[in-house]
């Protein structure tokens, strides 16, 4: 009964690519925003905090619609990026990655922010007395100490991206081979008579991928934590 059509495999591969790319591209931004929120007090901080959290509380369809009117081919930002940089999001897998990245961003930022807030800042003072300027201090002390949180944040973002449905389908539709991820493929299969069996196969694949990602990240985070505590 476990059978995947070539189209299903395409959806699986696309999902993995979209989730991986969105996670990796979101990471530098996630680290920057998390550091800003954990370390700096500035005017409008609670607004930034709220905006970052917004995709978590908005209905995904609303996020997808907002992406459509911002990054669509004829929308202001979308047209600018297409004309000047040749980056097109609408109805492309890159758009799916953008939607997934935005949806996953709050989870990523939250995990990284918590781990940065938990760092003993006296260690950073010690690094400063040893001659570390700001950038070096961040690279050699802050980031390594935040590593367990960064791994957790990446894992949460990857899982969220894998499961993203509403924003993606609203923004870039459900095009086999281009924007049809596992979730969208399962949805499509359940809409046709007799598609249940194929849908079940994809469901099993989704469960396996999610479990593998979870186990891998737990293992990595445990290792990173153990390194910090000297074993």
């Amino acid at each position, binding site marked *: 009964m476990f059978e995947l059509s070539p189209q299903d495999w395409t959806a699986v591969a696309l999902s993995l690519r979209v989730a991986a790319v969105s996670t990796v591209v979101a990471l530098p931004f996630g680290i920057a925003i998390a550091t800003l929120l954990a370390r700096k007090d500035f005017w409008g901080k609670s607004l930034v905090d709220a905006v970052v959290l917004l995709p978590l509380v908005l209905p995904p369809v609303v996020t997808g619609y907002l992406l459509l009117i911002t990054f669509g081919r004829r929308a202001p930002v979308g047209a600018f990026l297409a004309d000047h940089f040749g980056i097109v999001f609408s109805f492309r897998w890159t758009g799916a990655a953008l939607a997934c990245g935005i949806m996953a961003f709050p989870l990523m930022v939250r995990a990284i922010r918590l781990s940065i807030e938990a760092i003993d800042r*006296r260690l950073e003072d010690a*690094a400063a*007395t040893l*001659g570390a*300027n700001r950038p*070096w201090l961040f690279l050699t002390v802050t980031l*390594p100490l935040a590593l367990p949180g960064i791994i957790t944040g990446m894992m949460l973002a990857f899982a969220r991206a894998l499961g993203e449905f509403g924003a993606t389908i609203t923004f870039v539709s459900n095009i086999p081979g281009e924007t049809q991820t596992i979730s969208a493929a399962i949805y499509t299969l359940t809409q046709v008579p007799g598609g249940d069996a194929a849908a079940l196969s994809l469901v099993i694949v989704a469960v396996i991928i999610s479990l593998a990602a979870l186990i891998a990240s737990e293992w990595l985070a445990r290792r990173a934590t153990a*390194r910090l505590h*000297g*074993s």
Partner: protein
Amino acid sequence: MLAVDIEKKLGTFTLNTQFTSESGATVLFGPSGAGKTSVINMIAGLLKPDRGRIVLDDEVLFDGAARIEVPAWRRRIGYVFQEGRLFPHLSVKHNLDYGRWMGGHAANAAAFAHVAELLDIGPLLDRRPGKLSGGERQRVAVGRALLMRPRLLLLDEPLASLDAARKQDILPYFERLRDEAKVPMIYVSHDAAEVRRIASRVVRLDGGKVMATGGVELLTS
């Protein structure tokens, strides 16, 4: 030579301290809450005085009136903290090398071997700080501060977290440090017995003010 003349409001009291220190070990001695740690944090550049001046070997590190404030990372002042503050994600060897990396200096095997021998930390190099005893940790912390080639060494109650037996084990290392390493030291302590063994000169601090400066005879009065 170090010249300190600083003022800083700290909670309920105002720290107002003037002293100078030459070679050897100058001990800041006084009860807890006297402002000793705040004073050396200001020398290190970790705390900003409200006003005053800090000068080390003709270099102005801080001058409130002239708006000079050299950042901590450019001061080249070694600091041994009460709790060691070793980097938990780095091995002992990498902790010891950290100051050299940040200073951009080439490896100096002789200096490294000398410090490792002076402090007896050779066998610990591959371990992580989490696996060290309290005494070992403090010796590594001293080594780390020495290997950055500091112009001045600040030690903030480096023995306070150790039990009496451990203290007796480590004090000789500090005496050797004072006599052999030739780096001037500011040593903070509230333990008269410890001070008597280490101090070349004593600055007695209370309530944020210098009550007296002189030799170890200050401790008996």
